[in-house]
């Protein structure tokens, strides 16, 4: 039987007031919290481990294990910080989740905070989505009013405050230690690890940093059981996740499915490729994950299978490009992005992305020089693994994978501009409006 969708976090997004506490409570909302507050904290951490839930923010680190890394309580504060700085190109799951059903996150944060012994939790939301910030502030306010936040939550003796914090525009703040520096009121630059945030995080105190979707998955896991969750997905990539399809498919959107579904199945659900065109290349998990081609349509989208084929599951950000698209142009634009967003702390990333951008630009313009392709590979080799965080590594992924699969297009960049090979008006959403049939 082919894979079916599993609407859990996305189940009631079409309710006319999906974001309110009342709607959430009509859909099992805060039932898990009641159960959790009657459970020893250590059992909740164990349940998270047993579920096999792996971080939904890209790296896929086991969530329960991350909680378990906190040192024993020393009487001082411990923090939970939710990473809602969704900015990876192609990634668009947390923002609609928070717009449509923010209480999944709030309930998940209360349960998680109780499990790890935290009394003040933070949501770091990217600043460029003002209506989502309104919805989050409103959800937190409703939760306080209902007694799900504040002092002595539901008579349990457990106290929790949540602060919703808006960032100010910086991709790097999605990196967990840069996020913590930013939340402390500094430039968002990554820290050298170790120490990891579990030992010295926010204000140098033990801190858990988790992605929105990871924490939002906690209430269903607590309510229905770790086994219910781990029965979905594959053996090592358990559970469900939101798959975000964008680009040249007929019905781009959010598709919540067990891990291990394939792109072929998802494109079928999304109504096929636009105009029946051929799939040319795609990203399995955002622009920082090496490109795949139509040869990878049947790769199960779980952490292990995608890694085995040389890429990463990342955030399940499936950006789909058809045969009208110039891969050199696409990669060049991503390279601009990394050069712009490099925070400047580590030399290989700061300087390397700058020079990658110059070379990609001349290849795009059909003015590439002999040796440019080798030079790209060489610069990438000098960035990869040589910076504090993964931004520099991410910058190399689209370039090295595109050269691997589409070298002839880079060679064409020695003499022919991309827009002559791939007229851009054929790729747009409104291509029908501007082109005669």
């Amino acid at each position, binding site marked *: 039987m082919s894979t079916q969708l599993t609407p*859990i976090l996305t189940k009631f997004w079409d309710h006319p007031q999906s974001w309110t506490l009342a709607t959430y409570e009509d859909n099992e909302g805060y039932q898990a919290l009641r*159960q959790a507050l009657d459970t020893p904290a250590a059992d909740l951490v164990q349940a998270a481990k047993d579920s096999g839930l792996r971080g939904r923010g890209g790296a896929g680190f086991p969530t329960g294990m991350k909680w378990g890394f906190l040192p024993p309580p020393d009487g001082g504060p411990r923090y939970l910080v939710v990473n809602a700085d969704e900015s990876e190109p192609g990634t668009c799951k947390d923002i609609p989740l928070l717009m449509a059903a923010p209480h999944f996150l709030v309930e998940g944060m209360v349960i998680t905070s109780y499990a790890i012994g935290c009394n003040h939790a933070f949501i770091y939301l990217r600043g460029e989505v003002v209506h989502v910030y*309104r919805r989050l*502030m409103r959800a937190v306010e409703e939760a306080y*009013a209902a007694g799900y936040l504040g002092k002595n939550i539901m008579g349990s003796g457990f106290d929790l405050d949540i602060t919703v914090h808006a960032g100010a525009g910086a991709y790097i703040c999605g990196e967990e230690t840069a996020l913590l520096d930013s939340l402390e009121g500094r430039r*968002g630059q990554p820290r050298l690890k170790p120490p990891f945030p579990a030992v010295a995080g926010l204000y140098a105190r033990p801190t858990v940093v988790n992605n929105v979707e990871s924490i939002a998955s906690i209430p269903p896991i607590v309510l229905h059981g770790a086994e219910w969750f781990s029965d979905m997905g594959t053996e090592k990539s358990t559970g469900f996740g939101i798959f975000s399809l964008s*680009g040249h498919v007929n019905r781009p959107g959010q598709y919540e499915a067990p891990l291990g579904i394939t792109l072929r199945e998802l494109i079928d659900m999304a109504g096929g490729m636009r105009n029946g065109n051929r799939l040319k290349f795609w990203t399995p998990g955002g622009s920082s994950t090496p490109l795949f081609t139509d040869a990878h349509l049947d790769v199960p989208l779980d952490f292990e299978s995608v890694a085995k084929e040389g890429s990463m599951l990342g955030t399940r950000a499936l950006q789909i490009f058809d045969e009208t*698209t110039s891969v050199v142009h696409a990669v060049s634009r991503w390279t601009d992005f990394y050069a712009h967003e490099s925070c400047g702390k580590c030399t290989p990333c700061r300087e390397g992305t700058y020079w990658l951008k110059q070379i990609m630009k001349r290849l795009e313009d059909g003015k590439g020089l002999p040796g440019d392709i080798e030079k790209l590979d060489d610069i990438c080799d000098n960035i990869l693994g040589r910076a504090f965080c993964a931004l520099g590594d991410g910058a190399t992924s689209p370039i090295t994978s595109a050269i691997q699969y589409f070298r002839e297009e880079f060679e064409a960049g020695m003499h022919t501009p991309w827009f002559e090979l791939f007229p851009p008006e054929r790729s747009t959403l409104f291509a029908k409006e501007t082109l005669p049939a």
Partner: protein
Amino acid sequence: MTVAHNTQGDGVDRHETMFAESPLHPQAPLQASEEPYAADVLEQLEADAAAIVARYPQKRSALLPMLHLVQSVDGYITGRGVHFCAEQLELTTAEVSGVATFYTQYKRHPNGDYSVGVCTNTLCAIMGGDQIFDELSDHLGVGHDETTEDGKITLERLECNAACDFAPVMMVNWEFFDNQTPESSKQVVDRLRAGEQVAPTRGASRVCTFKHVSRVLAGFPDGLADEGVGAGEASLRGTLLAREQGWTAPADGRTPPATDTEATPQAQGGGVERGGYGSVNAPGNEPDDLPETKEDGQ
């Protein structure tokens, strides 16, 4: 910028070809306005700053929201705003400027009433964002990070704004305008310049001004959270397909707990009204135009 020319040793100066294009995000210096705040403005700023500081265990954490607050008054990051933040948080002005110049949402020169940002990251660019930006730029007569002479519109190129399934995307004061075309985007800016109310695709019932939105981003709700849709068309496609096909998440085999949706004692003792507007305004917040009733806001 110092660049070694002619590194290929073939006598051709490539400086022109490599740098003929202006950089994606040109840097501009901070324009320092040192004119002091009026007494009443300063008093309000101090009250707001105290409310922001109270949200955090350590007060330096208040800096990002306070810079949004400065923009809600001045329309950009001014010298006096930098001084104000430094005094309130016991930082040096260099520390505050260092933060203010790191983040792209902090503006270095007076911003228009509406920031119009077109996503030109790869996916949106290919889906039409480049054409939209170029046509808007011609239509408005301004380039990236430039403001129209009437002070209404500041045009920007944006990086990915997490709405790729709605590509190509345009943001106006950080509200979503999905699935844009060159024509639709030009209509939006024309209507904004004419002073009309314009509704985003997913967001409040109309786009608020840059200063208004900056105040929200400082953490002061404006009562508009319950306006607009929960999810747009693309966001719902998986949800609706599953329902149409009868696909659901597996059952857990457990007995569902008794449903209890009664308000807790804490809530009954003077909590907020659920789903109403009366409850959402933090002290010190005076939104410029709240809807009169809940129905008006729908």
